[in-house]
């Protein structure tokens, strides 16, 4: 429980809460990138360099920008005029709170809190590459297939539909 962890956790939480609660969608996405960056920093703190940088590259560099593009294309930027929460917001927040209570209870009741911790490790890039190319080569290939399928699917979905001549 270091100071660094507390600062980063606060930053991440602030980012995510703001992302879910702000009125302007663009502000939401910008706050979200803060949350993502905070998560990446937490990964670095945990010694997972490769995942941390991948997190920044994928989430900040791609997902956030993609979301921003979609917001601009659907013209939903700018402060919303109508209420931003749906009619059943009460139910939703109660469910979320309940989930949190259950999770927290489970974490605190479990044996983790009293566990003896192993010495810190660094995940070097080399072993990760080795693992991907040997032990995890089948999942990697499937992942490649999934990404290709997703790309084609996204392109097909976002493509202009054929002009229907009246």
């Amino acid at each position, binding site marked *: 429980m270091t100071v660094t962890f507390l600062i980063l956790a606060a930053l991440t939480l602030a980012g995510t809460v703001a992302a879910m609660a702000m009125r302007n969608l*663009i*502000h939401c996405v*910008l706050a979200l*990138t803060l949350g993502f960056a905070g998560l990446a920093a937490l990964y670095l703190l945990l010694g997972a*360099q*490769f995942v941390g*940088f*991948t997190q*920044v*590259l994928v989430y*900040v*560099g*791609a997902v*956030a*920008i993609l979301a*921003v*593009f979609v917001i*601009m294309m659907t013209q939903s*930027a700018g402060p919303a005029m109508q209420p931003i929460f749906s009619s059943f917001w009460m139910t939703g927040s109660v469910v979320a709170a309940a989930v949190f209570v259950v999770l927290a209870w489970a974490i605190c009741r479990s044996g983790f809190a009293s566990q003896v911790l192993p010495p810190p490790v*660094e995940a*070097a*890039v*080399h072993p990760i590459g080795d693992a991907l190319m040997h032990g995890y080569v089948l999942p990697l290939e499937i992942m490649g297939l999934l990404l290709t399928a997703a790309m084609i699917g996204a392109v097909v979905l976002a493509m202009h539909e054929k002009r229907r001549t009246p």
Partner: protein
Amino acid sequence: MTLSMFQAIDQIDQIFVTSQHRLVSDLPAEFQSISSAILSVIAIVLVFALLFAITTVLERKGLGRMQNRYGPNRVGPCGFFQPLADGVKSLTKEDLVPRTADQLVHFLAPVLLVMAAFLAYAVLPVGRNMVLVNLNAGVLYFFAVGSLVELAVFMAGWSSRNKYSLLGAMRAIAQMISYEVPLVLASIVVIMAAGSLSTVSIVDMQASYTGIWPHWFVFTPWGFAGFALFMIAATAESNRSPFDLPEGESEIIAGYYIEYSGFKFALFFLGEYLGMFATSAMAITLFLGGWAAPFSFLTWIPSYLWFFAKLVLLILIFIWIRGTLPRLRMDQLMSFAWQFMLPMTLLNLFVAGVWHFMPAGIVRWLVCIALLVAPAILLSRSLKQGKKFAVRHYRFAE
């Protein structure tokens, strides 16, 4: 040469490293690492800000001479204090913010841009043992930080509440994303060859010699092609001519920083140039042997001087290209990225593999060159298909 001479050369080469150690060693142990990091950061900020100042003068004077003008020559000797005057001017100018702008985001955008640009320097080795952090995923870090720039550009374009700046930001993001793919793919060749993502070990691999010749990656067919592709993509990434559409003055005036003035505008300028230096420095690290001397008999010159010499050379090439070429159009830019750059970088990966598995000799050279040149010609042909353009001949009426 005696042993003491070698030692003297080594001392000059390592002068910054040793002096940093000396400065830090007096401090208590728990502050040593943090204060040495702060010292390095200060050094990086100062040196590259100074390089930015010098580059603005060089660019204006170089462009001027190419256009048969003098360029700035009034402030200081030969106009070299011009950036000082520019800095004073931009600091004293009124900072205008549009009334409808998103004040906070408008303010944060240039700060984020400059921050992201400076972050990239953390993994660039500017000399022997002169790198801020030797991350073992250094190259990945570099590209991850680079993707922050897109966010800063979007923030600037969107928060200004000006359609021209939004258009510029959208163009810039589309262009950066499109050219990031070939940029990364072009550098993967080197990662494949070096077997490491760490910038330091990539440079170390290139810093040895056969006879007098260095082992730079640019002196292989795939290395040269990779370098050329990387530089083209880097030109587009840093929004330089002929890919300067996001700020194309004649079309969308100044792109995403149209509503910025005073010091914030200067920050944008600084961020753009720092981005250009960073990508050039990455190209040097990956392909041009980083801080290594070009010939084995020149190793007595300090390593950091070699690094900056190479950097300035690349900057000069950027300036030269800017002085010559007109700008592409958006659709041409995109089709160039996806129809030429992407296939070529993928092919280059393949060629690097072929090079790796073929026995050394002239045959390997010929095969690899043929594998690269023939598709390049075919692809450039296909770029022109449908719209045949050529030099024309004209008829005259009496």
